[in-house]
Structure formats: C-alpha cells, structure tokens
C-alpha cells in the first residue's frame, strides 16, 4: 500500500528535481602552452560562465588520453604556443577543443558552450562595430516557457503508472489465483466469469485513479504544472485508458500460467516500450521509421499525446478525438480477445 502511493510521489519528485539535460560545472582540463594574458583571460571567461570547472592543468599532450580514460575530465582545451603574440601579429591563432564523446550529447553541448564563450570574447576584442542589416529573431516558447523538464515528465509518469498498476497488477493477481488454485474455487462457484473479472478489476481502477490524481496535484502544487484544459475531459480520458490497460492485463493473464511469467511478460512487453516508445522521454520523430511505426501500436503513445494536449495546450476534444478513438478501439480489441481466450475450465 505504501509502495503504491509512495512510488509515484518519489518518482515525480525525482524526475522533477534530478533529471536534467542541462550541463553545469562540467569537469574540464586545460593544456596551456602559451600561459600568457590572452589565454589566461579566456580561461577566466570560461570558468566564470558556470558551465565549467577546472580540475586539472595538463602539461603535455600525452596526459590527455589518460585523464579521459579515468573519466574525470569531459573536455580538454588546448592553447597553442605564443598565443597572444600570434593574435597580435598574425591575426591568426588556434584553440583546440577535445571532448570525451563517449557521451555524445554532453560532448556536443560542451563544445557548443565553449565555442560561443570564446566567440563572445573575440567579439569584445574586435570592439563591436555597428553592424548593419540586423535581423532580430524573437523567440516564443509556447506551453512551457520555462523549459521545465517536469512538464514533459508528468504526463509520462501518469501514463506509466496507470499502465503499471492497471495492466501489471491485474495480470499478476489473476495469474496468482490460477497458480494457487483458488481460481478453480471461483470458477466452480455460481459466479459468472464476467463477474469474477469485474470484481478483480475494480479495486485496481480505483487505485490507479487515485494515483493519477495524486500526481496531478503534486505536479500542480510543487512544480506549478497547470491543467489548461478541462479537468473533466482529462479524467474521462484517463478512465478510458485505465480500462484499456486493464483489459490488456486480463489478456496477459489468460495467456500465462504463473505469476512469474505474467510479470515478465508485462515487464518486458509493457513497461519498457511504455517508457521508451511512447515519447515519454525520447521524441518519437527521431527514431528509425520501423520504430515509429511500432510506436503507433503502443497505447501509451496516444495517451501521452492526449494528456499533454489537455494539460499544457489546453485544447478540447476537437483536437484529440482521433487519439481517443484509437485508445477506445484498442480497449475493445483487448476485451474481445481476452473474452475469447478466457477459459472457464482449467486444463
């Protein structure tokens, strides 16, 4: 019980505070052959930017490989010899950046930051002439002006949890009855199969719903994540999604004989695709076409679109009827399949 409610809380908090792609205080090393005032000034500029932290002053090229391999340094900046003099006389100097691209994302960001800081320094050097013909782009960030990552994660976490609680828990609890043999007792009782299933499922509906509400409240009060659209519509959509997940759970339980198997099936077949192929963390548009196609049969993808649309864009049913229809269709399909598969007798 504690887990069921504690888990979403901890996850939302973790995501909200800990997961971020912004680089700050990246460890760098500097190999300064010049050691003159210009190279020192640039170093100063870099270090005061807040993106970098100097952990090592290198003295020779041979040390570069070693400090990368120990993992302590993400980027090395090399100033060539007699830096300031060349800058004055020949108007041409070179700064070399080497980044540890075993993490490509960070490497890319670091190189970009460094380049832009050095360019800024250069611009100060040239003393800005009044530039003609300026295009002034005005940037507008819709729906999430603070670029907060929580806005991205809350809809995803709601989806994952609904999926987990509804599909995984139902499938396991039904498989458990099978395994322990209590299913037999239920089957020979005057209860009809449909009654058994409904009875098993309702507690999880309530649970899932409470959890979804908890996350919404948390998102609202802790992270200031708004619900722009209609709350009623959001809850209705969640209900459809929960029903879909439940029928999927029942379907899984009908094909597996043990809890272990039900768990592994839902774990591998549901959880990871839910997290990875749904656009929860990684944008679907960037995946290979096969996976994009595959993601279309992942129910969470559609639900995440719906949640984002209602919560952040504040749109109504007119914009998301297609997604709603898809989820409802899947729901019916899973119900039909599991009704066909559900055996009243045990082998």
């Amino acid at each position, binding site marked *: 019980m504690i887990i069921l409610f504690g888990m979403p809380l901890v996850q939302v908090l973790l995501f909200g505070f800990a997961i971020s792609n912004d680089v700050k205080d990246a460890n760098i090393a500097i190999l300064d052959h010049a050691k003159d005032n210009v190279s020192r000034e640039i170093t100063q500029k870099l270090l005061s930017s807040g993106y970098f932290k100097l952990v090592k002053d290198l003295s020779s090229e041979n040390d570069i490989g070693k400090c990368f391999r120990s993992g302590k340094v993400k980027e090395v900046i090399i100033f060539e010899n007699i830096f300031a003099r060349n800058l004055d006389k020949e108007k041409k100097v070179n700064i070399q950046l080497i980044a540890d691209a075993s993490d490509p994302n960070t*490497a890319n960001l670091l190189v970009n930051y460094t380049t832009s800081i050095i360019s800024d320094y250069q611009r100060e050097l040239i003393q800005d002439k009044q530039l*003609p013909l300026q295009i002034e782009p*005005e940037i507008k960030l819709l729906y999430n002006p603070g670029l907060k990552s929580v806005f991205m994660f809350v809809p995803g976490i709601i989806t994952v949890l609904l999926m987990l609680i509804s599909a995984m828990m139902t499938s396991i609890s039904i498989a458990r009855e099978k395994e322990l043999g209590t299913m037999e007792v239920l089957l020979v009782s005057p209860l009809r199969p449909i009654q058994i299933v409904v009875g098993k499922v309702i507690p999880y509906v309530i649970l899932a719903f409470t959890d979804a509400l908890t996350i919404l409240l948390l998102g609202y009060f802790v992270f200031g994540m708004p619900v722009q659209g209609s709350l009623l519509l959001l809850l209705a959509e969640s209900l459809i999604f929960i029903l879909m997940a439940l029928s999927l759970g029942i379907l899984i339980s009908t094909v597996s004989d043990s809890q272990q198997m039900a768990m592994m099936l839902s774990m591998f077949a549901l959880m990871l695709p839910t997290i990875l192929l749904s656009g929860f963390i990684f944008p679907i548009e960037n995946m290979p076409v096969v996976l994009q196609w595959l993601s279309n049969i992942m129910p969470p993808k559609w639900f995440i679109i719906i949640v984002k649309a209602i919560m952040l864009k504040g749109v109504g049913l007119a914009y998301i009827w297609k997604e709603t229809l898809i989820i409802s269709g899947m729901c019916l399909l899973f119900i039909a399949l599991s009704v066909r598969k559900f055996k009243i007798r045990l082998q």
Partner: protein
Amino acid sequence: MRTILVILRKEFIQVFRNKGMLPIIFALPMVQLLILAFAVTFEIKNINLDVVDQDNSPVSRELISKFQGSPFFNIRNFYADYDQASNDLKSGRAHQVLIIPQHFERDIYKENKAKLQLITNAIDGSAAALMNAYGLSIIRDYNKDLIIEKMGDNFFTEPITISYSYWFNPELNYITYMVPGILVLLVTMIGIFLSGMNVVREKEIGTIEQINVSPIKKYQFITGKLLPFWFIALFELAFGLVFARIIFHIPLLGSVWLIFGVAAVYLLAVMGIGLFLATVSNTQQQSMFLSWFFMVIFILMSGLFTPVENMPAWAQHLNTLNPIAYFIRIMRMIMLKGSGFRDILEPFAAIIVYALSMLSLSVWRYKKVA
C-alpha cells in the same frame, strides 16, 4: 558442497522446465537491446516547420529556402496568417512556426533592423532548446550572408579559430553511448527480479517450509538459489556483447575479462538486493513491486539517460548507493575508452563493498523459520 550441487540441479531443472519463461529469459533481452538502442536518442531531425510569410519578398523567400535546405527542418505548410499555424501547433502537426511579418525586406534595408518570430512548442524543454538553436543559427548565417553581400568580404575578421575533435566516438553516435548502459540494464533485471521472485515463489507455494525443515544450511540454500541466475546473467552478457559488436559495431577497446570480472561481482550485489527484497516480502506481487520500485529509481538516477553530473548535489550523493550507476560508468569506460583496471578501481571497489554488504544483509535477514 554436494548439497549445493543438488540444490543447483533442482534450480536449473526448474528454470528449464518452465517453457513459458525460457523465451522470456533469453529472447526478449535481445529484442530489447535492439529496440532500446535505436529508440533512445536525443538527436533532433525532421523538425516540422510551418511558415507564415506575410512579406513575400525576395529576402523572405531566400531565408525560407535556407530553412528548406537544412537537414533539420521539414517545411510542412505555408500559411497566410498565424491562426492556421497555431492550429497545427495545438494538434501537434507542427513543432515550430516561423513568422516573417509584412515589410520585413523594407525594414531591413531602410531601417537596418527587421524583426521576425520563431514560435516553438516547448513541452519537451530540451528538444525545444535544440530546435531554437538550429533555427537561430540558420537565421544568423543568412544574416551574415546579407551583410557580406552588402559590405564586402572583409567586414568580418575573426582572428581566433576554434578547432574541435570528439574522442572515442567521433561521429557522436548515440547508439554507441547507449548500448553499454543497456547491457547493464538487462543483466540487472535478471539479477534483481528473477532471483528475488524465485525465493518468494517458494515462500508463497509453501515449499520453502520443506526446505527449512531439511538439513540444508542457510548459505547452501542461498548459494543454490543465486548461482543459476548468476550463470544465466553472465551468459546473457556475453551474448549481448557479441550482439553489440556484430549489429551495432560497438568497439570493445578494453579487456573482456575485466568486464566479466566486474560483472561477476556486480551480479552478486544486485542479486543480494533482490534476495533482500524477497526476504522482506511475502508474495511475488509484493516482491515484484518492491524490486520494480528500486529498479526504476536506480535506472533513472544511474546516468543511463541523463548524465549524473547534471543532477543536483543531493542526487549525486544518493547515487553512491546506486549499484547500476557504478556499473554503467565502468562499462562505458572499458568498452568505449579502453580504460584499464586502475582507472576503474574506485567504482569497482564500491561494487565489491556493495556486494559484500548486500549478501551478508540478506543472509542475516533470511530466517529458516516460516
């Protein structure tokens, strides 16, 4: 020793008898490796852009053609006013809208200053930042072209050139980065879930009482329970490494033996966790839920998706307790950078301590009474 062998035999028979589980244990991880490696990327390509060109001048058209020529952008629609484009943003058909207002060309030549608007759907913050950067750099480059066209080549002189190189992964391939981490993930799942579930299962079915009343000792029982999955996980790691090599051409610069050495100890640590969770829970459902909970936290904090260094200090401290974080770090170091034993000493020592303490904790916690 003989007792352990007998228990081992029993466990292996149980694992291989379960026909439903076999494909799940062996085939699914490979499928996962394939899907994960391709799905997990932060690269941005194919940004769907709507253009609202109210100026319709040579300059505006040229700027738009620059966007068309960029590999990042994919112009979807041209609209006459923002309302239609805004609809596309709302329905998710467009990611970004470029608005060039009326008199753009006139302003730029007459007043030396012209405004335009770039509107981005920012729900995914990090993607939005990238989309903006791409858009802005196209605009800036075009702006530079315009100035050079008017003022001549020598207007810009930039004495400092910056050259950069990316080591260990020159093409900035995301798959290379992810695969070592995913391998860790697969091994961990087997370690935490299966070993724990296995013990609880005996509890639930009641067979554990039969074992409890037998003369089997605690340590024999636990060894017998853990070893099969230890073998399976190591086997899977080997399989995964071959797979990574053949399909993804991921280099393995360091020593394979080092990887297996670390993995062997690491598995003891995660199995210890699984076992410990199993001893505190009574049903498989409970044990699964507990392990799932820890697993998710461990994974998210581990640096698999987002670098640990970007997390706030408290989160990084929390990570000292995270075995996955250590192993992912080691894996990446050995595979991609060819780090040797001395480079990984620190995280490796942490894993050893972890394994020892988790195992002794679960042995202590496991009681031979019902």
